């Protein structure tokens, strides 16, 4: 028997979680994806909960206990999606348990993308810029200050690539490591991959899809030039391809630990994450339609159908809106704010926000917590968006991920966690 027909709008992490959970509940699922969205630009790590009040400039003193951080978020931010999930379940551990349940569904042990880290502690990983980022889950082979051999690594420039600079990385990394009480003494090296041209860009690098063996050769040549190094660090530019743990793979072959840094966009690890998710969806029998939603229809308080790319029509009994924030295309701000698909009212601090000067939703300093990134739809306890009167907008519409209001993934370190938790819940609710 065919299950309930569920359509998910959005092909990022939240959309994938929703689709996979609806599928698990027996629904027949269609995903409408406009593009990779923010997931494909992410660093490659998955943030679940940062310290809500981190001491600036002393990264070593922040709280790294994910459970405790979630608890603090729930206590201090009643509108946060974590708080909504906890309230609905009547249990503050509900957030952690849904994420725990979702991770093996999204990233099965025998899957292509191997994650390291865990849900208990945020761990420091080196970024492409030399800073460290504290995060729960990260790609296998991420460079951590405590990784084997990292006290004397060889950091490799890719010849001609301007997005990464090993010398600047080394200086910033030394500063970061010392703030954490670690020591890193990097040596500088250079690697040239065949077929990349004289001045490759990251975007170009990511597209060259070739046998990983040629990378092994290039890296081992570079390693042979350096004396006394105990590990190798690669900038995150190697092709997204099918092999997610490329650094680990090269390391196995040359018999020395090889690590890769977390990325800034255009991000190879982010691309891998996106590739992995589409692969998971295909394997689980989720149908994917690529394109932007151009029109939508409802009847008697139920969402009925959407038109994709001005041609294809998708009908469903139940809907999940996981269209993301501004990057993803879920929200737009011109003079007024707008939810792009269903025209839902948008909220900021629990109040409807319509026309706002950008200066009124941003701080004077670029590093401030900007309300601009907290705008989104407001949902009830079943994650159904509400209309202007505060009642659910449609009986059969659920929302997940960055389109939600009440949290600020930019500063609170809950981006991936909210996408996974609300995605899984919305998917289950939609399939019910």
């Amino acid at each position, binding site marked *: 028997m065919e299950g309930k027909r569920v359509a998910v709008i959005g092909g990022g992490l939240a959309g994938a979680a929703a689709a996979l959970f609806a599928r698990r509940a027996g629904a027949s699922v269609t995903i409408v994806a406009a593009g990779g969205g923010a997931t494909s630009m992410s660093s490659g790590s998955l943030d679940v909960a940062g310290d809500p009040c981190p001491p600036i400039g002393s990264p070593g003193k922040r709280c790294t206990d994910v459970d405790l951080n979630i608890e603090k978020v729930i206590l201090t931010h009643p509108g946060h999606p974590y708080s909504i999930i906890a309230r609905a379940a009547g249990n503050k551990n509900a957030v952690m348990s849904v994420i725990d349940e979702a991770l093996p569904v999204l990233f099965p042990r025998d899957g292509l993308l191997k994650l390291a880290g865990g849900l208990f502690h945020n761990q420091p990983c080196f*970024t492409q810029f030399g800073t460290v980022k504290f995060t729960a889950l990260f790609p296998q082979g991420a460079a951590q200050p405590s990784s084997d051999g990292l006290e004397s690594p060889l950091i490799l420039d890719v010849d001609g690539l301007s997005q990464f600079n090993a010398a600047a990385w080394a200086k*910033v990394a030394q500063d970061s490591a010392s703030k954490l009480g670690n020591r890193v003494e990097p040596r500088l090296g250079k690697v040239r991959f065949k077929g990349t041209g004289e001045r490759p860009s990251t975007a170009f690098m990511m597209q060259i899809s070739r046998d990983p063996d040629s990378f092994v050769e290039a890296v081992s040549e570079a390693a042979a030039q350096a004396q006394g190094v105990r590990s190798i660090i690669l900038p995150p530019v190697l092709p997204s391809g099918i092999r997610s743990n490329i650094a680990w793979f090269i390391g196995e072959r040359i018999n020395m630990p090889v690590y890769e840094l977390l990325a800034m966009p255009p991000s190879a690890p982010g691309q891998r994450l996106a590739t992995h998710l589409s692969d998971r969806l295909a394997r689980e029998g989720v149908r994917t339609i690529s394109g932007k939603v151009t029109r939508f229809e409802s009847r008697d308080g139920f969402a009925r159908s959407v038109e994709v790319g001005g041609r294809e029509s998708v009908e469903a009994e139940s809907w999940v809106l996981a269209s993301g924030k501004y990057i993803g295309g879920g929200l737009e701000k*011109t003079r007024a704010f707008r939810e792009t698909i269903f025209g839902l009212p948008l909220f900021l601090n629990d109040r409807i926000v319509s026309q706002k000067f950008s200066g009124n939703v941003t701080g004077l*300093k670029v590093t401030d917590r900007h309300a601009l990134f907290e705008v989104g739809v407001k949902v009830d306890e079943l994650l159904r968006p509400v209309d202007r009167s505060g009642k659910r907008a449609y009986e059969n519409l659920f929302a997940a991920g960055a389109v939600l209001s009440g949290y600020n993934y930019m500063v609170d370190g809950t981006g991936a966690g909210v996408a996974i938790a609300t995605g899984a819940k919305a998917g289950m609710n939609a399939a019910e």
Partner: protein
Amino acid sequence: MKESHDVIVVGGGVNGTGIARDLAIRGVDVALFEKRDLASGATGGCSGMIHGGLRYLLYDVDTTRHSCVDSGYIQKIAPHMLFRIPFIMPIPHKFTAPFFETYFEVYDKFAPEKRGKPHTMLSKEQVIELVPTISRDIVGAVTTDEWGIDPQRLCAANALSASEHGAHIHNHVEVIEFLKDEKGNVIGVKTRDRFGSERDVLSRIVMHATGPWLNRTSKMAGVDVKIRPGKGVHLTFDRRLLNMSVILEMIDGRGSFIMPHENTSILGTTDDDYYGDPDDLRVTEDEVEYLLEGAERMLPGIREARIIRAWAAVRPTLYGWGKNEDALSRDHMVYDHEKLEGMSGIVSIAGGKLASYRMMSEEASDLICSKLGVEARCQTHVVPLPGGEETPDAAELAGEYGVSRYAVSRMIYRHGARARDVLELTRENPGLKRTVCECEPVLACELVYSMRKEWAVSLTDLRNRTRLGAGPCQAATCASRAVAVLAEEMGLSGREIQEQLLSFLQRRWRGKRPILGGVMVDQEEINQASHFLSANLAKMAAIKGFD
């Protein structure tokens, strides 16, 4: 013994650097002090036009005449930097046409001085063909033409020329006190550099050219110079929305324009009395709306276009009472304080326009030379600015050094004949051929050149010299690449690298905050997520009140 010079110039705007150049060419020993960066005040924030002052024709004909004459000279000494901007003034009603006709006939008389073309009358159909996005609610238009320039490059070229003629240029060194003898005459200045170290420097004459800061520094010096500071706001669009400048009428009847400028379009300007701190200028959304509303009438689709930045500067307009801001004279004044107040050792300059900076510098330098007993005459109208000797062929240079022809053509615009010197840096280090900023574009070698030759010490300085990060992405992708070039050349520590990056991102943010809308919000989400989330920059660096 204390350091001493014939002349100390206070202020590194176009007047300060122009005067330093004029005096240095005449053989005078000059030192210039700029507290922030060259051209970071009124000069850097102006419309970037070497124009004739069409709007001053009705009430300030001298300014129009001076501007036109000097425009001709500037074209001779820095041909690589100037680009022609055709202007059209739309005519909204039949009965206004004869007035415009007469007005432009008068303006034509000044045109040959600036190698301008005489005006033409265009029919409605002709206007629409030239500017397809223009409102259909016109009967025709009048044309004129003007010249555009990058004011920051003009200023850097003047400083470079001054330095090559022996002047000492001190960028990021603030004058914190005017030193006086027992009779109250100025005998030098006390300076403080960016590391906080202080030094007294003596001189026979202090040239006081602080522009927007004049009211403040005049008090400090004890001289009587008063300006009526006027805030001017511009908006930058991501591309050339049109190939001609269109003159606009704003809601309050004031004039304004939108013009193609380098790779972008500029809409401006406002003109409002400014009582605030010239070091802390912010554009408000009301100012942005004022400009858009004015432009929308003639270009109905303007709100669909992508604004990438709003910026402001303060005009050091001569003081006047009883007039609206836009009706104030754009004339300038050189103050001989010995004659005016009996205080020797100091000369001030105020007012004026970018287009007539050279002539103003000449006037001030003449006065200084007469005081010093120097007889040499001004030569700034005949001696080319650095790079202005000849304009090299972009394709040839690009082929010779193996870099993109487009990047070289942009570089030639900024450096003229000196583009070869810039590219020569890639011989010893071919890595410097890499592109740092893709929007403009800017190559690594140009950044290094600006640090070695043009007194740039920060990413923001590099932006001022090269347009680094001035394109549509507003430094979202180039900032971390550029800081690596800066770090290598300046030997920055890991901590300084992070501080530089943060402070540059903050400078960019200042210009983006009032205009965030549409695709710029997406761009900003990417920018902040990559720097503050993926690279976790803000939480790592100990930030001390950066701005």
